[in-house]
């Protein structure tokens, strides 16, 4: 009983913390973000197992976490509102070649990040070649290039 309740508590706690932390913190993972994830998993692990080293405990924790994730994904598919709350919504950083500074500040993205995404994904080299730039709900930056004249 404990295993399932503990795993569920950890799932929702992490869901809230990571949602509040914002898209960008996990979307574009840096080496340090990765280290942070490892430390977080290490800290959480002790709270979930609490001295119970049995295989059945590990198995129950895994199926609870994965099962909750499946349930939430099914629920999100039926409710746009929940999807917005849990995943966020895409926002335009750049519209028709014009940077939206206010949104960039809020999303903690700068011109360098937009250019990096543009280079990485479609080999664009200058800002004036970009038509739209979007922070997707998953935190990734998508780039729509201007049509070549």
């Amino acid at each position, binding site marked *: *009983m*404990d*295993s*399932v*309740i503990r795993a569920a508590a950890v799932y929702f706690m992490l869901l809230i913390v990571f949602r509040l932390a914002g898209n960008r913190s996990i979307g574009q993972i840096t080496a340090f973000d990765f280290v942070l994830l490892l430390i977080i998993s290490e800290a959480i692990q002790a709270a979930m197992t609490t*001295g*119970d*080293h*049995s*295989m*059945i*405990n590990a198995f*129950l924790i895994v*199926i*609870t976490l*994965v*099962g909750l994730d*499946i349930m939430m994904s099914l629920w999100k598919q039926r409710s746009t509102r929940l999807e917005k709350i849990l995943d966020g919504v895409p926002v335009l950083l750049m519209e028709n070649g014009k940077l939206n500074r206010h949104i960039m500040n809020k999303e903690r993205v700068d011109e360098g990040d937009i250019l990096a995404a543009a280079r990485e994904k479609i080999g664009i080299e200058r800002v004036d070649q970009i038509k739209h730039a979007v922070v997707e709900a998953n935190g990734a930056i998508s780039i729509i290039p201007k049509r070549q004249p």
Partner: protein
Amino acid sequence: MAKSEKTETTDITEDLGFQQKSWAVQRVAWLVMLALSAAALLGLFGGGPFSGAEVGTDGSGLRISYDRFVRQEAPATLNIHVGAPALRADSTAQIWIDRKWLAEMEVKRITPEPESSLVEPDRILYTFRIVPSSAPTVITWYLETHALGRSRGAVGVPGGPSYPFSQFAYP
């Protein structure tokens, strides 16, 4: 890959028949996971309403609460409620526990601590000093299970009642 066919417009090798079977298997697996979680919440894998069990009665002076389902390498407890009928004239109570069962457990601590323990060939005899009262005194054994599968134990009072119980330890 006999069924795999390239679609007309792309080079993607799609096998919708196979994918449909995977989807069906996934849906069944989700239900199995849900059922296992529900069973765990009810205590079928230890620590819940279906797991807690009792033998003995307060009237006999000895009542034992234990878990039907325990887990290997995990903490477990054994609560023994000692009532007035089990007390001796010198305000001590003696309780024995089956050694064979205890051998598969690691006793972390006993609260309250026994005044003495005596090893007999097939059981361990604990002596506790207890002030007589109307309510039974609870003595807790904090254990770690090393057993795997079914194990049988017994608890009793010398010359008095004894109660066998059975546990199942998951890996």
